């Protein structure tokens, strides 16, 4: 309970090629891989992508234990999706029949497809979030949101909100751990009792957490205004992101991959 934990997908510092890639290109490549993923219709293609995802994950040196721990909730969802398909998708040969329930071959293949897709999707998304700081990730997204400004979408503000939200996730986690320890030191018990009791026991945790979050938000707003932050103002950045040759290289490779698959599958 008291262990400091990292949320799945939290940035892990490193020096790999993917770490140093321009965030805009990472997002673009991710989007293309997603497109690829959902246009693939053969299991062979999916397996190639899965291998690629795994080798890249290994390449960026994520500790395996960390990956497995983080992927556990996704495995539950995958299992759920698999079962739904197995029992409810009709078609193909009837494999097993128990009373009125039948398991049919189309359900099994469809289920496996969905699960593999889900895992590949998660792995590639992880590949981006593990290697990109939240800040450069949001700036990357801001770039893609910009064209929507014409429609009145406040792209810069949305990016700022996301950046702040992401920035404060670890802070609030840390804070809640600290508060938990502080209340345990005063004899609080967060582990035993019925669900109702457990929920009631959370009051000493949630109230201070909210008070702290509001105070932080207030301080932050003040600090930002003191530095001249205004809604709608044009902002420049301290570090302009550079587009290197490797970014184009990755982009073109992904594009070729995407086109090749699309041509083969159609």
């Amino acid at each position, binding site marked *: 309970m*008291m*262990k*400091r934990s*990292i949320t799945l997908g939290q940035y*892990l*510092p*490193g020096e790999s090629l993917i770490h140093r890639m321009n965030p805009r290109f990472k997002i673009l490549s991710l989007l293309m891989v997603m497109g690829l993923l959902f246009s693939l219709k053969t299991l062979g293609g999916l397996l190639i992508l899965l291998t690629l995802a795994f080798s890249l994950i290994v390449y960026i040196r994520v*500790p395996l*234990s*960390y990956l497995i721990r983080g992927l556990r909730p996704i495995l539950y969802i995958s299992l759920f999706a698999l079962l739904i398909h197995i029992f409810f998708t009709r078609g193909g040969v009837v494999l097993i029949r128990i009373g009125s329930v039948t398991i049919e071959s189309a359900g099994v293949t469809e289920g496996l497809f969905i699960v593999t897709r889900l895992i590949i999707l998660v792995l590639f998304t992880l590949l981006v979030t593990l290697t990109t700081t939240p800040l450069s990730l949001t700036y990357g997204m801001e770039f893609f949101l910009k064209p929507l400004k014409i429609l009145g979408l406040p792209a810069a503000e949305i990016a700022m909100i996301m950046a702040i939200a992401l920035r404060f996730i670890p802070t609030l986690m840390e804070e809640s751990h*600290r*508060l938990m*320890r*502080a*209340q*345990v*030191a*005063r*004899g*609080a*018990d967060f582990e035993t009792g019925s669900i109702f009791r457990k929920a009631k026991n959370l*009051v*000493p945790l*949630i*109230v*201070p957490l909210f*008070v*702290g979050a509001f105070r932080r938000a207030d301080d932050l707003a003040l600090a930002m205004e003191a530095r001249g932050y205004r809604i709608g103002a044009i902002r420049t950045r301290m570090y302009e992101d550079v587009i290197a040759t490797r970014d184009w290289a990755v982009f073109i490779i992904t594009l070729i991959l995407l086109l090749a698959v699309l041509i083969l599958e159609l």
Partner: protein
Amino acid sequence: MFIGTENLTHVYMPGTSYAAGALQDVSFSLERGEFAVIIGPSGSGKSTLVQHLNGLLKPTAGRVFFKGRTVCFGKQEMIRLRRQVGLVFQMPEEQFFSDTVYDEVAFAPRNLGLSAADESTRVEEALEQVGLKARLYRDRHPFQLSAGQKRLVAIASVLSLKPEVLILDEPTAALDFAGRHSLFNLLADLNRNLGITILVATHHLDEAASLADSVFVLKDGRLVLAGLATDIFRQREQLRKIGLALPPITEIMYGLADRGLPVDPAVFTLSDARRVINTLKRRH
């Protein structure tokens, strides 16, 4: 050896690139009834160290002991340990969640499962111990108190456990000079009058220096100096290297000694300093 650690090592999040060694092979101990101070620059591992003493953190290696026995971190033992070793966190008023001072201070006794009458006695005692009149403060809203009063209520909310050891992590953080001064005097009173063993983690040497029996200096997770306060504060160069500033009064005394005057620089209080300077004046 009443409470302390032996070869304590603590590593945060081992096995990731976030892994950070917080403590390296720290051994120290306090006697019953002692008033001790852990000093060290921020990030030196003070908070991590004190959270081991009431079992909030488990050592990666080494052991924690209390009353001559190794702490085993079993569930029942933890509950007993946390009653006897009270820990006041940094900025403890940030834990407040009740509508009244009474409820805030009663949180710990309620968790112990005391009767309403016992609870009420404990709350009143704890408030009086920190110098707040229970009658005047019990129904006030904790968020409406001044910074200093909040701090006192927070300390009372741990004292209501009736601990034998009271550990405070940066108790004077964000308090002004007067607040710091009176808080340390309060701790000295708790130590002298109630016999509570006190351990304070701080980077403020000013008040700590004149009150503590023994001083432990932490730097980058290692215990680098330990001994009597008067001995520690004679090692000015060493402390400066660690990144700790001496109390201003002691600095003045060092300045006098550096200029060739016969002064013992281990002076921490205004009254002692006045006495030393008066003696000097009489001689010249």
